[in-house]
């Protein structure tokens, strides 16, 4: 009882998990949603075909701590290039930006430059994703 109470005084980590662009591969995104929920996080899953504008708006409206993308169809660099200024315009640069999916190693530095510090290519483990979010999200949430 006491433990539950103290846990509830700090807000749970809130994650927006989005499927950017036209990519229809959602198996990975959906299993990560479940993993994050099982780890005690609140997750808003957008469904497929989100534009950069829609993702930025949802991230702002829902006041999330983490903005996560799942991309498997190769358009991650052009998409993140469009998304970055929109997130910045909404003052979301202090949120944690992470991306997973089919992300060739040669693109990782470019993704980091675009603000996506957490990069989880195909084959990443749930624990690695959960731990990264817990360790890097702002202190006010847990």
């Amino acid at each position: 009882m006491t433990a539950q109470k103290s846990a509830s005084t700090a807000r749970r980590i809130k994650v927006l998990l989005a499927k950017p662009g036209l990519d229809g591969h959602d198996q990975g995104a959906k299993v990560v949603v479940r993993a994050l929920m099982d780890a005690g996080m609140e997750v808003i899953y957008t469904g497929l075909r989100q534009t950069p504008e829609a993702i930025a708006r949802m991230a702002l409206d829902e006041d999330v701590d983490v903005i996560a993308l799942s991309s498997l169809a190769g358009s991650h660099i052009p998409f993140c290039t469009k998304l970055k200024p929109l997130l910045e315009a909404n003052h979301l640069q202090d949120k944690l930006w992470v991306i997973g999916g089919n992300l060739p190693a040669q693109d990782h530095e470019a993704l980091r430059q675009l603000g996506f510090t957490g990069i989880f290519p195909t084959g990443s483990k749930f624990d690695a994703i959960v731990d990264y979010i817990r360790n890097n999200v702002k202190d006010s949430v847990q």
Partner: protein
Amino acid sequence: MNDRAKDPLKPVFNESGIEVKPLYTQADVEASGGLDMLGQPGEYPFTRGIHRLMYRKQPWTMRQYAGFGNPAETNKRFKYLIANGQTGLNVAFDLPTQIGLDSDDPLAEGEIGRVGMSIDTLRDFEVAFDGIDLNKITVSLTINGAAAILIAMYLAMAEKRGYDVKQLRGTAQNDILKEFIGRGTWIFPVEPSIRLVGDTIEYCAEHAPKYSPVSVCGYHIRESGANPAQEMAYAFCIAKAYADDVIKRGLHVDEFAGRLSYNFNIFGNLFEQVAKFRAGRGLWAKIMKEEYGAEKPGSMWLRMIAAGGGGGLTFEQPEINIVRGAYYALISALSGTQTMALCSYDEAYTIPTEYSARISLRTMQLLIEEMGLTETVDPLAGSFYVETLTNEMRRKMEEIMAETDAQGGIVKLVSEGAIQSKVSAQAYQMQRDIESGKFPKVGVNCYRNEQEEEHPVQFHPYNEEDTRVQIDGLNKVRAERDAERVKKALARVGADAAAGRNVMPALVDAVKAYASVGEMTKELVKVFGRYQEPIRF
């Protein structure tokens, strides 16, 4: 790694939930239902194969998935594959084409030609298939949301080149219900989407009777998390939903069922897969004969592509995927498939290069030339294990189909997101089991390399220039075509859709006027609206 050795008598279950015993005998075959459903190859219920002589007469068609960039580049890849002995084409379209967007649509930016070739108008199809004999090489179009439009385009292209459309063979994937479960290239809501599938079946039955307008896919349902028994059971439920739509229009099952085909997945337990295909052939024949009153044997045939699935391949130690692919091809051959394809070993990294596509092709060719797999029909028949498991898999599929119907049917369950939620929960559990080591995966949770080597994967280059070339080409067609004719043809598409008439004649007409994929899709969206994805966990 395998802890079974510690307790050899601990129960073992396959992925479909069937217990696998350490030994099978004649008694198990009898207890599971005997050999009543076995029959002879080429005879009802076709468990042993849909043709009497199977590969002895003709080996499986080899049809690697290919397409990227613009139609001219894809044409080169097609010719490369054909020159290397490929006997069919399996066309990959980029995502804008798949969901009905022109290449100059703002939403298409960054996606042109990336995962397949970009198609805007009939002109693109003329280029893509230039110099390819459509009577010798059968073409399979992997298109779903925009399938009615692309089928119309393929038929129009063939007609323009002088082929008799009545004799034209080929396949379109055109299985929209599975797109709502996995793969995600839907456009319209569920009901009008099914109607469009019905329109293509009805139209082809009359105008292109040798063309296969639908390939019902268990494949992607399996990739989304379904087990092998569910994969086939859900695919049958979906095929029945399309058949029901067409029968409602007054067609007899024998007028179209012979042109329905299937696309299934292969990864995991070898015997479970082989039993799945053998069981599925018997069950589908029984459904067509007993439930639908089919009389022609062709209407009862489970014609299929059985393809080595990406879901079984790993990001770790990618070169081991070449070996996995070889086993998947072996399973496919032992299962009596009509067509074979393999995901290439670099599937988890990139779309295949010429090099990796050729390895897949050679894998299938060496089974034909070196391994004796084409000499005898259904070589695993009579194995106590395989026959017992075939009976048990068939019963499992029947149970899943009955349960699906009892819950309101596949259309309702897909519309509500219930199937999606169920298979996604299973995918999550499977991933957990792989991460915990409970479900062994070589290179992932056992036999890992201490130090992952530099992966021997070449990346297929993405050419930014393709986008400009494609948009320029579209603008050129728009400038040259008869604008008045296009306008009239598009208006007819909308009018026929609204009036509930079969839209295929209007689409063929619009395609011939060089209307674009995006323009035709917009007309249909005006009438049908767009699908809203149910989010459910």
